[in-house]
């Protein structure tokens, strides 16, 4: 009897173990399934909005006849785009031109907010109410976009760039939040003349976000960060600039071959000394610089509400000549004004790069806010110490260096000039900076194509920051 019961007990124990294994399998699988559910919820909450509005989604171009598309407003409540009798109507004149690249239009080859927010503008807020009302009125209203862009600043910026007579781009944004205040590209198109095709490529290019330019000396900010990270005694380390440097037969010259004498990193930034950076580049190598550049949005996706080109930094091994060129912002490096102003804004903001955005909030037909963009950080890959040091250097650029023509004790501008040689004859002028330097309220990037040097850009910067202060 006893032996039997023992056997039975054993059998029961085995069975229990067997059943526990089945339970274990079920639970493991359940965990996988829950993971999938959580991922789907995450998709709907976070990822789907940015994704589905891409023009790769064919549904963006499907327009619902029954829905009256919402309007687009600037930060002052000015209607930049609206629907009248089933047609999209935009601002006329200079105001319209200044907004053209940002607003864009909807079509297969469409671009800008009109394309990227086509679905959002057609989304019917408070749907049940509207649909019930629609039984009589037969109309429902889509949601509206409210931009961070200040129409007045936008117009002024556009006027400035038109006056300069050069093609180029101006971006102004709040470094502490990433709010874009103005973003213009020249040449632009009047909506009345826009035939809605891209035959005239040059005019349709949004130079602020899709124009890829050699950053020129502005890139020395990135090089400086690399130097700070890799040369511990960079503050005291001196280099004798003779106006040109020759390494293995590769020659790099300073602007006008001016000899800057014995200089440190600080002086090199202030005077935009090419030979110092070429020398340092040769010491440190390309990999470290690539590391820094990739931390600052190069070779990576740039998340923004409209199309942005990827900033490029060479991925290959380079020879001595290209290495030195790369350190001074020439070489194969290409970037957008938006990326540069984000980086410099980050420097002004204590190293914290904020994600730029132009859509402040979306409201439904009653004006109720449906979705408000929260400022978010891209990264803080620039350390506080580096940003403080860089801030001091960038102040000097305007105080006594290459940007001293806009020295102004009230505006307190800091930034970096640049002139990027594209060919022997063509040189693009840059200025990227922020103001006031002790508590940056606005970051600005001005790029003028084929402008020989950065003089013209500096004038525009001064004007626009002055205007911004008046606001």
């Amino acid at each position, binding site marked *: 009897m006893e032996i039997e019961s023992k056997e039975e007990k054993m059998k029961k124990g085995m069975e229990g173990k067997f059943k526990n294994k089945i*339970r274990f*399998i079920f639970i493991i*699988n359940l965990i996988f399934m829950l993971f999938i559910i959580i991922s789907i919820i995450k*998709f709907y909450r976070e990822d*789907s909005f940015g994704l589905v509005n891409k023009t790769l989604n064919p*549904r963006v171009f499907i327009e619902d006849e029954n829905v009256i598309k919402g309007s687009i407003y600037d930060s002052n409540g000015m209607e930049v785009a609206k629907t009248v009798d089933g047609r999209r109507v935009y601002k006329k004149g200079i105001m319209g031109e200044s907004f053209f690249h940002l607003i864009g239009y909807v079509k297969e080859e469409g671009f800008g907010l009109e394309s990227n927010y086509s679905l959002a503008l057609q989304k019917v807020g408070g749907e049940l109410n509207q649909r019930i009302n629609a039984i009589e009125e037969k109309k429902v209203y889509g949601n509206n976009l409210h931009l961070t862009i200040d129409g007045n600043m936008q117009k002024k910026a556009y006027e400035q760039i038109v006056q300069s007579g050069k093609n180029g781009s101006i971006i102004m944004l709040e470094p502490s939040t990433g709010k874009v205040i103005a973003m213009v590209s020249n040449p632009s198109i009047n909506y009345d003349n826009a035939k809605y095709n891209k035959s005239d490529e040059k005019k349709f290019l949004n130079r602020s976000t899709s124009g890829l330019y050699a950053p020129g000396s502005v890139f020395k900010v990135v090089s400086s960060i690399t130097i700070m990270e890799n040369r511990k005694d960079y503050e005291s380390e001196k280099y004798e600039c003779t106006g040109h440097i020759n390494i293995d037969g590769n020659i790099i010259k300073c602007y006008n071959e001016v000899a800057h004498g014995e200089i440190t990193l600080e002086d090199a930034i202030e005077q935009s000394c090419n030979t110092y950076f070429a020398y340092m580049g040769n010491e440190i190598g390309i990999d470290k610089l690539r590391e820094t550049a990739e931390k600052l949005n190069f070779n990576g996706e740039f998340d923004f509400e409209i199309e942005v080109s990827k900033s490029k930094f060479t991925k290959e091994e380079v020879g001595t000549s290209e290495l030195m060129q790369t350190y001074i912002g020439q070489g194969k490096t290409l970037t957008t004004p938006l990326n540069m102003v984000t980086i410099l804004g980050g420097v002004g903001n204590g190293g914290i790069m904020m994600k730029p955005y132009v859509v402040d909030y979306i409201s439904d037909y009653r004006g109720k806010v449906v979705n408000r963009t929260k400022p978010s950080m891209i990264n803080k890959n620039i350390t506080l110490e580096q940003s403080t040091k860089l801030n001091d250097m960038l102040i000097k650029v305007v105080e006594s260096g290459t940007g001293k023509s806009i020295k102004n004790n009230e505006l307190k501008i800091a930034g970096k000039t640049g002139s990027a040689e594209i060919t022997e004859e063509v040189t693009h002028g840059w200025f990227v900076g922020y103001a006031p330097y002790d508590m940056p309220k606005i970051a600005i990037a001005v790029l003028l194509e084929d402008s020989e040097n950065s003089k013209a850009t500096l004038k525009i910067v001064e004007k626009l920051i002055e205007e911004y202060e008046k606001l």
Partner: protein
Amino acid sequence: MLKLAILISKYLYIGYISLFLIFSWGYVLEERGLSNSRVRYSMHQFNLILVFNITTYIIMYLSGMRSGIGSLGFIVTLSIIMVIFKLLSKKIFEGSCPILWNSILFLINLGVIIICRIDYVLGLKQLMFAMLGLIVALMMPMILKVVPKIEILGLIYLVVMLGLVLLPFFYKESQGGSLNWSYITIFNRRITFQPSELAKIVYIFFLSSLFRKQNSKFKIGLATITSATLVIILVIQKDLGTALIYFMTYITLLYVGTGNITLSGLAIVLASIGSFVAYKGFPHVAVRIDSWKNPLSDPFGGGYQVLQSLFSMGTYGYLGSGLGQGYPEIVPVVESDFIYSAIGEEFGGIFAILLIVIYILIFYRIANIALRSNKKFNSLVVVGIGSLLYVQTILIIGGVMGILPLTGVTLPLISAGGSSLIITIIMISIVQWIQRNNMIEKKLEIEEAKKHREYIIEHRNRGLFEKDIKAYKDVVSEESEE
């Protein structure tokens, strides 16, 4: 007016699927004796399918799709098939789990509707396959009765299985880049099918048959070598999804059947190495992995399918576009691999998530049946079927959502495709048949115990022997223990 109706229907559909799950919850509570509300949950749950169909008909009628899915004939036929099956299954599979039947009927019904909405002809085909599958399911108890001793046929399964997966090499029928299709000719009509689907059942039977008793090294070795061969054949046929499903089934049954954790772990490690080699070695594998990591990196090449699927899922958000209002046909192979995206697009994200909960419910019921089986073989078969379907569901939903690399397997019971649908229905009917046998055995046990007690009581009334009193006491104490 139409738009208003569609808006309301979106909420209704979410309501139906929620109620469906709530009724299951009620049923489970009742079954465990935790509630005693005497509500006939399983019947209400089934009725929801009919209400679902009526709503669909109204919406489709209003949208003007009157020839296809909006035709009364179609929806009535579909509903009648459901009702007839429900009634017959109750008779034929006495004691089977009604929640499991309802759930698979709900999914089949939903599948036929959504496929029909995408492509009417495909939908009709799917309806035919569903009918065929359900008829076979009803015949399963008879078929299984005819086969003598299904648990000891190990080697026969092995031969059949290898024959099946090798079939496509001789009767080739390439579809969608995979080489796992084959055909048979009946009455001069060429019928294409996927032998690897049919082999799934045989494979589960094979493994269960090997692992049903004390395990020898020989058996484990045989199982491992056979599984490895199968997986390699499927990889050669470019059917990575099915290969992975076979492999996971092997791991599961190995673990449950032999309890050998070392071996299971080792298999997983070896498989990881194997997949890495496949990633490096086969370009078509590498493309899938790369496009999974970032579909936007190649939006018109490798990432195209997943990207379109995500657009489909995401564009209309939690509530969906409403039935007939979305554009699922933009997504490639939407009727089979990407059917889940189509459901997400038109019925909405909430519905799609609750649909996963229905799958979880199905596997919960299957696991429950496995736990109740007395025979190890039966338990193993049920666990095998359950985990196979579970893995398949995870793979394809994870795939179309870009969570896992895309493997072209079907979403059980919903995706278009006869082989997969019919085999899955048969699998469920095997599970139900085992449940029915469990219940019959239990019933017999109860009846025997009753008879025994009656016998004793009778003897006592006549005047008892001491022995009988002792036996009676034993029975009583046993009962009170229970």
